[in-house]
């Protein structure tokens, strides 16, 4: 039981997020109106994705050190769940953009560079499927993963903050932290991103357990 406390914590934090996320008083910022509450649902998707991709690249590097296939499983599973969270973040962002920017897929730099970063990671999953030899697959995809991570950070974090973008938190439009005078946004935001990240890690451990069983079957 002691090993599972963080799963209960994830559920409790998410319950708090969903209830408080709709009830808490938020500052009304321009035409965002109440959709500012997406801060508790859309933004944690990306934080969860970064966490999972970081786990992935660390395990790829560890794999290249000792050529241990278990590390390759960790790397591939976390990238897989990371893509799930990235896709969810992208779709929810597009829905929000439809009603605040006036277009679902716009030519906004943040949206384009994020789509490119997600496609790079989708290519990682396709690359894994296309190599049938287990050892070769692990080596090639581990090296590709390091390059993918090296592109992820500038594409989704640095470039959108340097250029003019409609997205809050870029060079021209300020983030929400400065407008949050009563501190209620951050009161829900921190539990929200912890909860969603823990949920992502939970799904990732399930996938790892499945892949380990599968690998054991192969070596039998």
């Amino acid at each position, binding site marked *: 039981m002691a090993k599972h406390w963080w799963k209960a914590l994830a559920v409790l934090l998410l319950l708090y997020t969903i209830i408080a996320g709709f009830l808490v008083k938020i500052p009304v910022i321009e035409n965002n109106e*109440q959709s500012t509450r997406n801060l508790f649902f859309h933004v944690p998707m990306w934080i969860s994705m970064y966490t999972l991709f970081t786990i992935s690249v660390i395990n790829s590097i560890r794999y290249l050190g000792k050529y241990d296939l278990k590390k390759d499983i960790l790397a591939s599973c976390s990238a897989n769940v990371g893509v799930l969270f990235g896709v969810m973040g992208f779709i929810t962002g597009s829905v929000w953009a439809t009603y605040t920017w006036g*277009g679902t897929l716009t030519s906004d730099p943040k949206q384009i560079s994020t789509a490119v970063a997600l496609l790079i990671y989708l290519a990682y999953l396709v690359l894994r*499927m296309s190599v049938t030899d287990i050892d070769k697959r692990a080596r090639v995809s581990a090296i590709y993963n390091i390059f993918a991570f090296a592109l992820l950070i500038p594409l989704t974090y640095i470039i959108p903050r340097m250029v003019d973008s409609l997205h809050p938190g870029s060079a021209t439009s300020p983030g929400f932290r400065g407008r949050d005078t009563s501190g209620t946004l951050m009161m829900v935001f921190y539990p929200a991103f912890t909860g969603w990240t823990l949920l992502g890690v939970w799904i990732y451990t399930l996938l790892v357990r499945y892949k380990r069983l599968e690998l054991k079957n192969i070596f039998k």
Partner: protein
Amino acid sequence: MINRASYFFLTLALLLPSLLAQAQQQNTETGPVNELLRSNGKIYVVVTVLTIIFICIVLYLVRLDRKISKLEHQQQSKP
């Protein structure tokens, strides 16, 4: 498994330009769905977002469930 995935990516690649071209048109239309989502200070945008997240996670879990059933089936037939 490989075939299904490659079909999926091929369709996606073929559809992407037309999807992008369609989406480039500005969304300022007034359908019943658009009006609902803009009502009450756009709160239904947040509801839609939460629903999308829930559906995606459930679909992913169903996929994982199927994979595990397949593995169980293989193990039962082997020994």
